[in-house]
């Protein structure tokens, strides 16, 4: 029985994606789970897998098309099967020339925000010729000031930008430290030329991060509540449990935090929520997003139903998804559907920081390092280990008192971590 595969929704607020490559051509046999196509979204290139085994009967969209979410993209049929009523109408997709794709959505770089050609709706006005030239010369149109009507970027603006880019300077001489130096030191610049400024076009991910977070920071009224947690029991339990686990399955501090946050969120449905138009959506599922640093940006992977899952399952899922994210092979479901996010910079010796809410979620938790410090324990002063976390919350959704109560509830799970393994 033939089945139609539709454009997946790789992100919460995704409306469309570019089908960059058909991995399987028409007539190819596919096994369930094999990759059919690659889709480029704001976040990454993701793979669409075959939901069943069969033969690729017909591609319904062309490679390079921008495809709205949910549009049928391919028919998988049984070998030898004739699909009588294959949809003949081509779905409303917008074929794009490769060069035109990224520029219209590019977010302006900070230095050019005021005078760039990017208009209020995020579209960059440029003549077709300017777009083509920009693509060929790898210039980010959004960074240019258009001299045409309404700030349209035209040929002469591109030519001016090209003239302004300095010619590559010769490789500066690097002088090795003298052999006698006891401690190796970084090479120093001596007499060579200072490297010229580099102009690097924003990639799609960088542009998307910029656009989404500018929008978040400008339109969401953030407020912040910081709590200082006693990390000693959690660290102790972790080392105890990890003695039982093989090296490749050891639990991270973050795994505990994911679980702790998930359980606390179960008690605070108002924080496990999203704004949608005039509505507040309190999510039934608790899907904890974890920000993962990837080359050139960051992705938020989603650990689904983390409140329901044992620590080891959380650990494995996060490890697998983060691995895929870092290798650029993230799947749509990896980055879809988080209801609350965690950003953890604990591994970088960070005392504390605050994060920007990942829209449309209502809050995000910024996790600092577990650090040794003097603590007052009853009437004595001793050395303890503390971990600071800061929640950034959307004041349209929740208020300081509730956020503070959430942080307090979180303390129960962080500081009595046996609750996480029960």
């Amino acid at each position, binding site marked *: 029985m033939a089945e139609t595969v539709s454009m997946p929704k790789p992100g919460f607020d995704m409306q469309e994606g570019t089908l960059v490559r058909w991995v399987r051509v028409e007539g190819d046999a596919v096994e369930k789970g094999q990759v059919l196509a690659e889709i480029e979204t704001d976040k990454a290139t993701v793979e669409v897998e075959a939901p069943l085994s069969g033969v690729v009967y017909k591609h319904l969209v062309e490679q390079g098309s921008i495809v709205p979410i949910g549009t049928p993209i391919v028919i998988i049929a049984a070998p030898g099967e004739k699909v009588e009523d294959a949809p003949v109408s081509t779905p409303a997709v917008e074929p794009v*020339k490769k060069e035109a794709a990224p520029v219209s959505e590019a977010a302006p770089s900070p230095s050019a925000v005021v005078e760039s050609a990017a208009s209020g709706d995020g579209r960059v006005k440029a*003549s*077709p*010729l300017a*777009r*083509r030239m920009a693509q060929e010369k790898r210039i980010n149109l959004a960074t240019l000031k258009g001299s*045409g*009507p309404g700030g349209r970027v*035209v*040929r002469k603006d591109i030519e001016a930008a090209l003239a302004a880019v300095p010619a590559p300077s010769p490789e500066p001489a690097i002088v090795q430290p003298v052999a006698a130096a006891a401690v190796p030191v970084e090479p120093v610049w001596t007499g060579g030329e200072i490297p010229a400024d580099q102009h690097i076009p924003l990639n799609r991910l960088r542009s998307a991060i910029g656009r989404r977070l500018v929008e978040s920071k400008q339109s969401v009224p953030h407020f912040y509540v910081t709590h200082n947690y006693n990390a000693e029991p959690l660290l102790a339990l972790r080392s105890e449990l990890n003695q039982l686990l093989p090296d490749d399955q050891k639990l991270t501090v973050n795994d505990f935090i994911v679980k702790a946050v998930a359980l606390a969120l179960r008690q605070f449905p108002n924080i496990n929520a999203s704004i949608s138009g005039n509505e507040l959506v309190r999510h039934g599922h608790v899907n904890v997003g974890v920000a993962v640093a990837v080359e050139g940006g960051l992705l938020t992977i989603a650990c689904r139903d983390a409140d329901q899952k044992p620590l080891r399952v959380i650990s494995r899922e996060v490890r697998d998804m983060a691995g895929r994210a870092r290798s650029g092979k993230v799947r749509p479901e990896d980055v879809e559907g988080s209801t609350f996010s965690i950003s953890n910079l604990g591994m970088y010796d960070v005392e504390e920081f605050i994060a920007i809410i990942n829209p449309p979620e209502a809050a995000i938790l910024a996790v600092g390092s577990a650090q040794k410090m003097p603590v007052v324990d009853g009437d004595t002063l001793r050395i303890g280990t503390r971990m600071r976390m800061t929640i950034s919350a959307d004041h349209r959704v929740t208020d300081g008192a509730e956020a503070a109560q959430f942080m307090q509830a979180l303390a129960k799970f962080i500081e009595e971590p046996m609750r996480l393994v029960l």
Partner: protein
Amino acid sequence: MARITMREAISQALWEEMEKDPKVFILGEEVGVWGGTYAVTKGFYDHFGGDRVRDTPIAETAIIGGAIGAALTGLRPVAELMTINFAFSAFDHIVNQAAKMHYMFNGQMVLPMVIRAVGGGGRQLGATHSQTPDAIFAHFPGLKVVAPGTPADAKGLLKAAIRSDDPVMFIEHATLYQMRGEVPDGDYVVPIGKSTVQRPGRDITLVTYSKMLEVSLKAADQLAKDGIDVEIVDLRSLRPLDMDPVVESFKKTNRAVIVEEGWKSYGVGSEVAARLYEQAFDYADAPIKRIAQTEVPLPYNRALEQSALPNVDTVIAGVKEVLNG
């Protein structure tokens, strides 16, 4: 090569083709004894006789219908319409019969006929006698439509039209008859369906034809004083429309203005602009501009009439607008 008027060039082409081929004959109102309303056929009646230079009643349907019949039976008629505005009286014969017979009867017959029609405004002839409806005729597959802007092209294109086995609308502009230009002697033929660059330039492409070629050349001369180097492409034929020189020029200049005398809506400029976007979108550096007649019936009042027609000033303003756009 002689420097002659467009009237003389058209007359020369007709004369030479009639001398060359006894099947060629002329019919129309006042073309014979009187020598033509615009004196194009002066002296033809005396030389070729009444059988080959036939005066007709004031009945355009009869003129075109007679031409169709003559063409079907093997002659090569050249029918003259005193003005193209009267072509509407013969519209069915032109677009339903002449344009379609070859197709509808499976190619069994050809219609080697030319309709010489005089068009254009600017002579205070009133709304019904001053129209430039070239685009209407160019709309119909089955017709060829040519409209020369120089004496040389008038001679060369008319010869090609007379020799063509398809019906050809040969549209002359009434205010160009006195225009002088170098015209090659003898058998000079300009193929139908070939646009040409009339003035090379590098800054902007000006696409035009017929009377507006003269206007555009004058505008280009003035713009040159401001350091603006205009390239002018003369379409010469509206159907078939040769876009190659237009596209080539546009790829070089990246900006275009189309100047026509007729109304803008659904006009020649619309067609050329659409084809440029289809064929050279990635070369556009500014929106393409159409310059055309103000969308009113052309006024009789001299000042109003002139203000409704495209002129050197409007072309210059349009070019500058697109260059700044």
